[in-house]
């Protein structure tokens, strides 16, 4: 079975390697942005690189459960690392926006209040903060597994808001943000309690 072989391969990868890879990649992008950016406007470029990667990781994170349930591919051991790495890229995205792009606290606030796409992005970020903060065994023990699971369902609205944020900041009709939104909605659709929606026979 392909799934078994994939799972066997995945077992050889330690989940912490994802944190290392994420940190190295973020640092590498920053280094490229400083030394030899692929565009004359590296601020916007770095902001988008971090944001885009965060969105990708959110999609992968949301795919973990459907992949296991429907294709029996087990990414469960990586789920926390995927989520936490996504959170750190959102944080990096926000820091580039605030410090390098907008460059003042007052303007950051104005942007959040006045620009709907920033408001939406910020809302997504805020929803992810408690998830990032409780992504450790001690927190799960302290608040209880059931509450923890409920709390971490916040990633659903956060992911939708992130996709809307991307869609909203794009000019004209662009495919990529729509693809992300569609993927996220599709992955969330897998989680709907379909059986309960069926009429009783």
């Amino acid at each position, binding site marked *: 079975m392909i799934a078994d072989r994939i799972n066997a391969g995945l077992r050889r990868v330690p989940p912490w390697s994802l944190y290392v890879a994420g940190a190295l990649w973020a640092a590498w992008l920053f280094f490229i942005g400083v030394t030899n950016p*692929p*565009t*004359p*406007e*590296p601020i916007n470029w770095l902001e988008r690189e971090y944001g885009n990667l965060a969105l990708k990781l959110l999609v992968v994170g949301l795919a973990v459960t459907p992949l296991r349930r429907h294709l029996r591919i087990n990414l469960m051991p990586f789920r926390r690392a995927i989520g936490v790495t996504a959170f750190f890229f959102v944080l990096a995205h926000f820091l580039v926006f605030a410090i390098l*792009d907008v*460059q003042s606290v007052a*303007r950051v606030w104005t942007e959040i209040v006045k620009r*709907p796409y920033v408001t939406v992005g910020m809302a997504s970020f805020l929803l992810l903060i408690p998830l990032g903060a409780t992504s450790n065994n001690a927190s799960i023990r302290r608040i209880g597994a059931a509450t923890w699971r409920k709390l971490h369902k916040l990633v659903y609205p956060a992911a939708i808001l992130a996709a809307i944020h991307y869609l909203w900041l794009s000019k004209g009709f662009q495919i990529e943000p729509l693809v992300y939104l569609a993927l996220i909605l599709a992955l969330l659709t897998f989680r709907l309690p379909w059986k309960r929606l069926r009429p009783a026979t």
Partner: protein
Amino acid sequence: MAHRWKNDLTHADVTPKSAFFNRRQIMAGAAGLGVASIAGGVSAQAALVPNSFEDITSYNNYYEFGTGKSDPVDNAHQLQIEPWSITVDGLVDNPGTYSLAQFMSGLTVEERIYRFRCVEAWSMVVPWNGVELADILTRAGVQSGARYVAFETVVQPDNMIGVQRGVLDFPYVEGLRLDEAMHPLTLMATGLYGQPMPKQNGAPIRLVVPWKYGFKSIKSIVRITLTETEPPTTWSGINSREYGFYSNVNPTVDHPRWSQATEREIGGGLFASRRDTLMFNGYNEVAPLYAGMDLSVNF
């Protein structure tokens, strides 16, 4: 008539040719050799002179070739510019279709170093080469009923990936009020840095209206039409709340999705600071064109 307008940007604001072609190679070479003094010298020059040929030709909006900033430089080589013809029609005494050479004959190409402010809140300084639109319109013989000038960009579906994808309703169209079009600042540019216009910048001929947001400066023009009524323009057609017909650079009227109070100068690197955006992009001599108009309504 050439030389009606005098510049406050000088050649000191332009990267010298020797530096602009190879700034990256020079810096890479200097870094490789570990010659700090050379690198320091080059970056000091870069601080003085914001925009290199490379910046101007690799960071573009030209949606016919894709929506990304580097799509035009990657894809615009497909643009066919030979032969090129331009139709001048509408309310003119001498309508006709001209080859580019016919169109330019008898006109004096001059250099104009203009600030260029994009609606997306970034800016550049570009040394354009071109002729005043006024000279072209005068030659065409503007009739008394004409009040606006409409412009149209070429559509070459086979060569334009953005047209194939339908990112906008092409052809791209723009327009100016006749007095704006006749203003000595308004340029029909055929080159930059003394080179023929690069394709990604709107070869072979484009409009440059330096006191308006960049999208007004329509590229690769094939038609100029004098009209009595305000012509449709692409972006205001897509979203009239975000993009008005006038689209003058105005730090006090925000784009609904972002502030226009400040701008980032392209080429300043990852730690570039923002600067305040100037009314009419600093070209206050156009203010009389809008006397008595509420520019927050006519944005």
